[in-house]
């Protein structure tokens, strides 16, 4: 039986007259969900993005967008994009290496299941508790800081000119990589284990050395999935707020700048800077997720 006729077969019994009459009523079943999503997802998103287009008095304006020439805002966006890119690059490489190691393990064995649980726990761990852990590790009194000072005479916190490393945008790389690597493993491992051993065997039968299998078969097959996972890591680092908020008091990256603008408008003459920043974030996320969707579609082509 074809898929189409199967669909017809399951559809026919439900198109009785009684059901049809109730069908129009059934649409009301969506109303709780629709109202909830409208009030708490649609309206806030539209408000956040649209508020950048209005003055404090509620008149339409584009002048708020001059915020994007303010050096403060430009630096903030550059910092955020730079930070997310560095985190994504490091996490992609480390995550891929761990994935390759995990792929060599027995898929039903304890190593894989432990790694699975650990990764899903750690990928959720981004937040202020992660910031505390890193303060305990490499803050002024951190375990690693103290140990390095005592054993090697190296002061972790005087390595950078402007104060302790951990409390600057650059220092965010450490905690961000910590929750990004597990995310990379979770998203990239399925692609890697999806590589079928028959493909390697076929290549070997045809006389290809391992290097050729990796460069000409495995790498092109894995490239879209690798790119897609890297982009997801970028997106999660770009939109992360809590870890940074616990480590840095004022501004520096876009989410922190938004918080700053919501609590106090600091750029004189401009209204709703938070809305302008939010719109900027949404644009970046839209671009990133579009690229992800394209890569994901290509990656799926080789899955069963």
């Amino acid at each position, binding site marked *: 039986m074809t898929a189409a006729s199967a669909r017809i077969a399951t559809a026919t019994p439900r198109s009785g007259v009684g059901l049809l009459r109730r069908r129009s009523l059934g649409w009301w079943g969506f109303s709780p969900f629709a109202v909830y*999503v409208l009030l708490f*997802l649609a309206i806030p998103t539209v408000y956040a993005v649209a508020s950048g287009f209005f003055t404090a008095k509620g008149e339409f304006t584009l002048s708020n967008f001059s915020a994007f020439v303010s050096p403060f805002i430009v630096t903030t966006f550059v910092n955020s994009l730079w930070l997310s890119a560095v985190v994504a690059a490091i996490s992609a490489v*480390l995550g891929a290496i761990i994935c390759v190691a995990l*792929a*060599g393990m027995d898929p039903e064995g304890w190593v894989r299941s432990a790694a699975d649980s650990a990764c899903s*726990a750690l990928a*959720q761990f981004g937040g202020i508790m992660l910031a*505390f852990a890193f303060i305990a590790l490499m803050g002024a009194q951190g375990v690693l800081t103290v140990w390095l000072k005592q054993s090697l005479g190296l002061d972790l916190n005087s390595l950078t000119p402007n104060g302790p490393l951990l409390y600057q945008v650059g220092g965010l790389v450490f905690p961000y990589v910590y929750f990004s690597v597990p995310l990379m493993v979770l998203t990239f491992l399925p692609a890697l284990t999806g590589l079928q051993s028959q493909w390697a065997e076929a290549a070997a039968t045809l006389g290809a050395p391992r290097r050729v299998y990796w460069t000409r078969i495995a790498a092109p097959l894995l490239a879209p999935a690798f790119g897609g996972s890297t982009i997801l890591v970028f997106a999660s680092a770009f939109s992360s707020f809590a870890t940074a908020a616990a480590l840095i008091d004022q501004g520096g990256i876009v989410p922190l700048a*938004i*918080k700053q603008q919501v609590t106090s408008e600091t750029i004189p003459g401009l209204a709703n800077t938070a809305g302008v920043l939010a719109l900027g974030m949404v644009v970046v996320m839209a671009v990133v997720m579009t690229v992800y969707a394209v890569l994901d579609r290509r990656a799926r082509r080789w899955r069963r």
Partner: protein
Amino acid sequence: MSRPVGAALGRSGAVAVLVVAAAAFALPLVALLLFTFRVSGDPGALTLVHYAAIVDPAQEFTYDGLFRGLSNSLGICVVTVAIVLLVLVPTVLLVEMRYPAMRRVVEFVCLLPLTVPTVVLVVGFVPVYKVVSGAFGSAAWTLAFAIGVIVLPYAYRPIQANIAALDVVVLGEAARSLGAGAVPTVFRVILPNLRRGILSACLLTVAVVLGEFTIASFLSRTTFQTALFLLQQSDPYVAAIFSLAALVFVFVLLLVIGRLGSFRPSRRTS
């Protein structure tokens, strides 16, 4: 049979990579644990005084905010789980049983909060909550409406994965042809088959609510995370203790969810 990918590192290479990775990931957690035993100003000494301080009635005032935050968060958990059970689950069932064409729309909406950063949503929540406070007051549990949105993707996926492993339409028809009405069909046939997916969704909801900081911080409500953030400035040791406890709790939750299993087509449908 050698797996094609694993062979790239060799067995010992793979083990070495995993051991190093595990050690690296354990490092901040071990540091956090050690930190809870530290004596302020004396890196060499160890003490249990910070654990004793939590239950010390003389210092009750210091941790008052934290316990209030914790109980607020638990209240938010209850309301958020209720939103998942009373709003999301019926909608997903309605889609599966009556309007399969709507599946893509509901899926898109449920996964949307992954794409819209929470910081962006929260800019819009500020004015929405001026209205909400007017209607329900400014009690902490009202945050559940906002957090419920963040939870949607996490709650939707396990339920949908469970549904994908069943054939809800056939189950429903079987129940009806055996004479069950619509209500018994849902409550005695469909929902029991979805209990693992729904339970996973609820546990994930609890995990997300307990870890939520952004919304509470922007709307200046006291929750577990915002209280922890404040406590960190006055007593970082006790903040570390509670962070660890929360982390262990969430890890156990995730282990339970893992135990609930992945939703391959079950014995029932074969």
